[in-house]
C-alpha cells in the first residue's frame, strides 16, 4: 500500500495529483525550487522540501536530489506528473533501483516508445496502423526513391534519432527528393551525430486524436476513449475535446482496440496515451505514445467518470484494474481550454508577472485546475500555462455554451492571458460545427487573432471608472490623513493635492 507520495513536479499538475492523494489518505510531499517557495503546490502539500535553484535543470530535473528527498522523508512512491522527469527512462530506472515506486511505466516501456523507429516496428508487429513508409533507417538514395514511389507523394523525410523538427523535410515533387534527402541527412548528422533517416507518407492537414489507456501490472489493458486535440498553435495544443466530432462509433472502437494492442505490445503499465493522426476520411495512423499523464486528461475523467491519478496510484501499488472495458462509456461531452499567461495581441509572447486579481469560473459542469492565486508572481523559469478550464454538458453545443460562460467569468489581471482568444475559438464557425483539423488556427487566423474594432462607448465607461478611482484617491488624501497601522504612534501630515486645474 502506498502511504506517502512525492510529487516531482510543480504548478497545476502537482496540486492536481496532491488532491487525489489527499482523497486516498496518502501523504503528499512537495519538492520546490527557490522560485517556488510560496507556490501553491508547496502550500497544498503535507510536507515540502527544497531541492535547488530556480532553473529546472538545477531543481525539478535533478534526479539525485529528488531521490534523496524521497529516501529522507520515506516516500513510498514518486509521481512525476507531465514534463520534467515524466518520460525519463533513467529516472524510472533509478527509482526502481532505490526501492521507490515510480508511478508510471518501467524504463523499458519508456525507452521502446521513446525511439521512433523502434516504436514504429513494435506497432507494425502488433498490427497497429502506422503512417506508410520505411521501417528501417535508410542510407541509400535509390532505396529511398523506391519507398517514396510505393507510399506516394507527398512524403516526410525524418531523422531516425530526431525531434524538434530538425532533420525533417517535406517533399511534394519527385524532383525534390534527392536534394531533400541530402539536406535531411546533413542536418540529422550535425544535430544528432547520426545521418540515418526514414520516410513517411505526409498526411496533409491531419486530425490529432489520442486514446487514453490504463494498464495494470497483471496484463490488463483498457482504453478510456479518445481526445480530439487538433486545435493547435505551433504544435502546442490549446483546446481539446471528447468525444471527437470526427469519429464514428466504428472507427472509435477500432482505434480503441488498436490503442490497447499498442500498449500491450510494449508491456505497458500505468496511464498512457496513444496519439494518432487521422485524415479526413478517418484513416488513422499511430503517431507516438506518451508514457505519462497528459495535460488534457481531465476531459476523459469527466466523460468517463474516472480519477486517472487515483488509478495510476492503484496500478503502481500492484492493484488489479477494477474498471472493465465493457462498463465504460462516454457520458456527454467535455472540452478543455488551456489558459496561458501570454499576449495574443503580441504574437503570443509569454507574460509572466504578479497576479493582481483573479476570479475563477464556477458552477455546474465547470472544473478549473489552476495553481495561481492573488499576489502570486508567475515565475519566468517555467511553462506559462496557468490553468486548465474543463466544461462538460450532455451535448456538444451546450458544452461550448458552458465554456463560453466560464471564459466570461474567468478574470485575471496583472498578467495578460489568452482567455479572450479562447473565446474567439469557441465563437468560430468551424469549431462550432466540429469541422476542424490541425490547420484550424492558421485557416481561421483572421477571425481568431488581431484587434477588435474600437468601441467608443466602452472607452467612455473605462474613462468613467478611472475617473471615479481618481476621485476616490483624492478623497482618501483629504480625509484619511492618519494611516491605519500604528495610528497611535506616528503622525501623518497630508497636503491637498493639486486636484483640478
Amino acid at each position, binding site marked *: 500500500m502506498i502511504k506517502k507520495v512525492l510529487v516531482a513536479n510543480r504548478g497545476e499538475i502537482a496540486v492536481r495529483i496532491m488532491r487525489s492523494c489527499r482523497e486516498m489518505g496518502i501523504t503528499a510531499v512537495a519538492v520546490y525550487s527557490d522560485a517556488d517557495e510560496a507556490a501553491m503546490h508547496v502550500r497544498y502539500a503535507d510536507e515540502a522540501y527544497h531541492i535547488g535553484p530556480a532553473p529546472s535543470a538545477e531543481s525539478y530535473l535533478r534526479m539525485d536530489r529528488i531521490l534523496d528527498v524521497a529516501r529522507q522523508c520515506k516516500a513510498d512512491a514518486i509521481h512525476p506528473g507531465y514534463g520534467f522527469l515524466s518520460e525519463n527512462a533513467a529516472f524510472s530506472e533509478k527509482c526502481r533501483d532505490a526501492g521507490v515506486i515510480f508511478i508510471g511505466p518501467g524504463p523499458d516501456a519508456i525507452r521502446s516508445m521513446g525511439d521512433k523507429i523502434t516504436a514504429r516496428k513494435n506497432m507494425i508487429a502488433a498490427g497497429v496502423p502506422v503512417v506508410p513508409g520505411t521501417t528501417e533507417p535508410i542510407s541509400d538514395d535509390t532505396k529511398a526513391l523506391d519507398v517514396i514511389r510505393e507510399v506516394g507523394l507527398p512524403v516526410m523525410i525524418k531523422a531516425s534519432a530526431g525531434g524538434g523538427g530538425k532533420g525533417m523535410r517535406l517533399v511534394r515533387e519527385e524532383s525534390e527528393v534527392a536534394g531533400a534527402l541530402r539536406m535531411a541527412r546533413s542536418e540529422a548528422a550535425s544535430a544528432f551525430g547520426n545521418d540515418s533517416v526514414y520516410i513517411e507518407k505526409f498526411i496533409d492537414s491531419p486530425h490529432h486524436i489520442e486514446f487514453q489507456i490504463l494498464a495494470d501490472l497483471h496484463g490488463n489493458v483498457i482504453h478510456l476513449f479518445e481526445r480530439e486535440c487538433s486545435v493547435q498553435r505551433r504544435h502546442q495544443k490549446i483546446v481539446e475535446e471528447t468525444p471527437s466530432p470526427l469519429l464514428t462509433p466504428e472507427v472509435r472502437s477500432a482505434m480503441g482496440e488498436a490503442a490497447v494492442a499498442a500498449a500491450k505490445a510494449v508491456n505497458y503499465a500505468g496511464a498512457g496515451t496513444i496519439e494518432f493522426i487521422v485524415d479526413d476520411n478517418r484513416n488513422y495512423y499511430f503517431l507516438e505514445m506518451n508514457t505519462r499523464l497528459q495535460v488534457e486528461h481531465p476531459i476523459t475523467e469527466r466523460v468517463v467518470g474516472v480519477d486517472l491519478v487515483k488509478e495510476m496510484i492503484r496500478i503502481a501499488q500492484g492493484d488489479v484494474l477494477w474498471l472493465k472495458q465493457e462498463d465504460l462509456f462516454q457520458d456527454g461531452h467535455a472540452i478543455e481550454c488551456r489558459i496561458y499567461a*501570454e499576449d495574443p495581441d503580441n*504574437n*503570443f*509572447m*509569454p507574460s*509572466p508577472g504578479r497576479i*493582481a*486579481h483573479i476570479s475563477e469560473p464556477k458552477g455546474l459542469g465547470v472544473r478549473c485546475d489552476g495553481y495561481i492565486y492573488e499576489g502570486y508572481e508567475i515565475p*519566468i*523559469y*517555467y*511553462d*506559462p500555462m496557468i490553468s486548465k478550464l474543463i466544461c462538460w454538458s450532455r451535448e456538444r453545443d451546450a458544452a461550448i455554451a458552458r465554456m463560453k460562460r466560464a471564459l*466570461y467569468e474567468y*478574470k485575471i*489581471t*496583472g498578467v*495578460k492571458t489568452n482567455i*479572450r482568444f479562447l473565446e474567439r475559438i469557441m465563437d468560430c464557425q468551424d469549431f462550432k460545427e466540429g469541422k476542424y483539423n490541425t490547420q484550424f488556427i492558421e485557416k481561421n487566423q483572421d477571425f481568431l487573432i488581431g484587434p*477588435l474594432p474600437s*468601441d467608443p462607448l*466602452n*472607452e*467612455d*465607461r*473605462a*474613462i*468613467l*471608472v*478611472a*475617473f*471615479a*478611482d*481618481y*476621485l*476616490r*484617491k483624492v478623497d482618501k488624501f483629504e480625509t484619511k490623513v492618519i494611516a491605519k497601522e500604528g495610528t497611535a504612534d506616528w503622525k501623518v501630515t497630508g497636503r491637498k*493635492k*493639486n*486636484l*483640478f*486645474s
Partner: protein
Amino acid sequence: MNTLEISLNDRIASVTLLEREGNRFRVRVDETEYDATIIMVERGAYLLLMDGKSYNIELIEEGGPKKYIINTYRYSYDAGIIDAETRYQKSRHSDHGDDESAISSPMPGKVVRILVKPGDEVKAGDTVIVVAAMKMESEYKVKNDRLIKEIKVREGDTIDAHQPLVIIE
C-alpha cells in the same frame, strides 16, 4: 472647474464632474453626459451601473497612482489621469511613444536568432531578434524604419530581462 483629461490608449478625453452623491456620478466625457453608479467592489474591481446595465471593469495601477491598465470584458486599455501635476511632468519629458533606443526582452531567456547586423536598415515591423523564454520563442520587431547600430549579444547567449540586445537609431 472640475475638469481634467484622461488618456486611454491614443485617445485623450476631457472629463468633467457635474454632480456627485456617494457612489452616484454625473460626468461629462468629451461631449457625452453620463449618469452612473460606480462602486469599488474589490480591490481593483469596479461595478458600473448605468441605464440599468451592469458592467464589471477592472483597474490595475501600473507605474504610479495615476496610471492604469483598465480591463473591460473584451478590451484592455492603458489609461492615465492628466491633472496639473502630470502635465507639468510631461512637459519636461518629451515622449515619442515609439521604439526605445535599444531592443530588450522583458524576461530573461536565451537568444535564438539574430536577423540583422550593424548597418542594416530595417523597415517598421521587421523582426530584429528572436528570444526563447518560458518555453516559447518571441520575436522582437521595430515599430518604425530604423538603422541597426550595434548588436550586443550572440545567438545562444543567456540574457537578463531588460538587457540591451540590439541598439538602433
